[in-house]
């Protein structure tokens, strides 16, 4: 009897330690980046161009570049992702094709980001000949984000009660009319929540943009979607490995890391708040 209790106490402590270890890891990561990055962050850092061989100045072009690329990612991933989810949830019947589609989605989410990069180089940069630019990088990231948007959108569609659909159809509306007026409006917020999470992941990716458009140094902000761009994750990479004086710019690297994490964190927070608001609305 005593032994059993003793083993339980030991076992529980072990599990508790595991959980604490995980939380500790996150704490260490955030502390290191926040403490060493915060010293560099000020309004100037966020709004000026890099200067003096990128040893001074700010990271504005990287912030803008990441923003632009993420917008293009969204333009590709949102409509195509929602469309696929609508098909799967509203139209598709259980069959071989549907199983194939679902299998494809699961596998696409497991494809390494560098393989998406390879694909993007061949398809967008070379075959479609748009060169290395914001569009090419955005499209590549868009493909990578598709599985996320589809999964999130499907969840949102599933949450719309069937009675909404049945009621509309009973009144004589066509399938598409039903979807447009009785399903989509209620699912859109949920779709966007998942999409934003996917976009936040895309904003932090480096491998797909390595060869599709990211640049070491650009003197102006990109003036067109066919221009190359600087991006936060790529900037962090070059500041910590390729730059002339990596120890001198270490603080800038930390600052970039902090801005990147803050961006990803903010997008996640936005999605969570959206999800919370959505749940509140549903309950009323």
């Amino acid at each position, binding site marked *: 009897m005593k032994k059993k209790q003793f083993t339980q106490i030991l076992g529980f402590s072990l599990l508790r330690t595991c959980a604490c270890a995980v939380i500790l890891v996150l704490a260490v990561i955030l502390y290191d980046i926040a403490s060493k990055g915060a010293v560099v962050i000020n309004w100037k850092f966020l709004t000026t161009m890099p200067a003096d061989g990128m040893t001074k100045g700010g990271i504005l072009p990287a912030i803008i570049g990441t923003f632009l690329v993420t917008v293009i990612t969204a*333009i590709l991933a949102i409509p195509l992702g929602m469309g696929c989810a609508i098909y799967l949830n509203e139209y598709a019947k259980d069959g071989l094709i549907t199983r194939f589609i679902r299998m494809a989605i699961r596998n696409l989410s497991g494809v390494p980001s560098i393989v998406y990069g390879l694909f993007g180089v061949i398809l967008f940069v070379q075959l479609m000949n748009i060169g290395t630019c914001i569009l090419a990088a955005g499209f590549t990231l868009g493909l990578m984000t598709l599985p996320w948007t589809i999964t999130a959108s499907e969840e949102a569609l599933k949450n719309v009660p069937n009675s909404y659909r049945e009621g509309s159809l009973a009144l004589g509306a066509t399938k598409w009319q039903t979807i447009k007026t009785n399903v989509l409006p209620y699912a859109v917020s949920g779709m966007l929540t998942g999409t934003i999470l996917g976009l936040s992941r895309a904003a932090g990716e480096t491998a797909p943009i390595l060869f599709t458009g990211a640049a070491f140094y650009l003197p102006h902000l990109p003036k067109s*979607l066919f221009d190359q761009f600087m991006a936060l994750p790529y900037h962090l990479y070059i500041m910590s490995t390729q730059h002339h004086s*990596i120890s001198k710019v270490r603080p800038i690297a930390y600052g970039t890391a902090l801005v990147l994490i803050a961006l990803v964190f903010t997008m996640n927070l936005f999605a969570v708040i959206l999800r919370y608001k959505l749940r509140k609305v549903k309950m009323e």
Partner: protein
Amino acid sequence: MNKAATFLIAFTLMFLGVSACMAAENMVEIKGSDTLINVVQKLAETYMKGHPDAGISVTGGGSGTGIAALVNRRCDIANASRGIKSKEVEDANKKGIDPKRVVVAIDGLSIVTNTQNPIDKLTMDDIGKIYRGDVKNWKDLGGNDTPVNLYGRQSNSGTYDFMKEVVMKGEYSPNMKSMNGNAQIVEAVKQDPGGIGYVGVGYVKDAAGINVLKVAANPGLGYFSPLNSMDVKTGNYPITRPLNQYLNGTPKGAVKDFIVFELSAEGQKIVEDEGFFAVPREYQRYNNDLLGISDNLDSSTTKYSVEGRDGA
């Protein structure tokens, strides 16, 4: 929600529209060598201060990347810390590109070791042996009993190629750690008592916290340091190389203007400030021929001999 989406879409369409009009942007695209990237970026920055409507973008990736981009018409200038290879020239000609070379700086490729390493000079032969993996411990060369830790660049780097062709005359030991940039090599060797690395001289001009070895072409000749500009310019230091920029055909317009700036007194001062060496007479003449500038240099008898790959 809908409002935000509409706004976003409208904004992007506007951007697309504006960008379509501005697609003919006169941006000079420079890609390539990491050895050159910082000095060219500095040159570009200074140039644009004086010419506000010029636009120059600089990307790295290695000499191989730059030349590949030039051949595939994705850049205007390819930075290269080595000469173009015959296979690359073939590819270029096949695709209708006529690669022309400009020499923008001279580099004394420096061999660096940790301050705890008592050895302060080596022959080219020794360096070759070390990097081929034939020497595994510093004591074999009269140093401490520490294993040798090799640091080098990645295969897309011109410095990697140059080192291999000229100094090692053999393949790299697979145990070499390939770093992404010159600065990373310096950082690593600073912390590693058994470390050795090769970097462009521009990265060790301060030589703080690191040993820059003196090198002799042969044990009979003298040992010279790359930090001594006279020795580099006269060719005494055996591991010197021209730092090149490759272009498609004779440069014109914005590209030519920038290159003229790079080779001007102001530009060459920036080159020296960044730790490299200015282009000597012989190369100046060659550059001017390419650019179609008459040169008013006196035919001085300073013979400049550069050992190393020279763009064949």
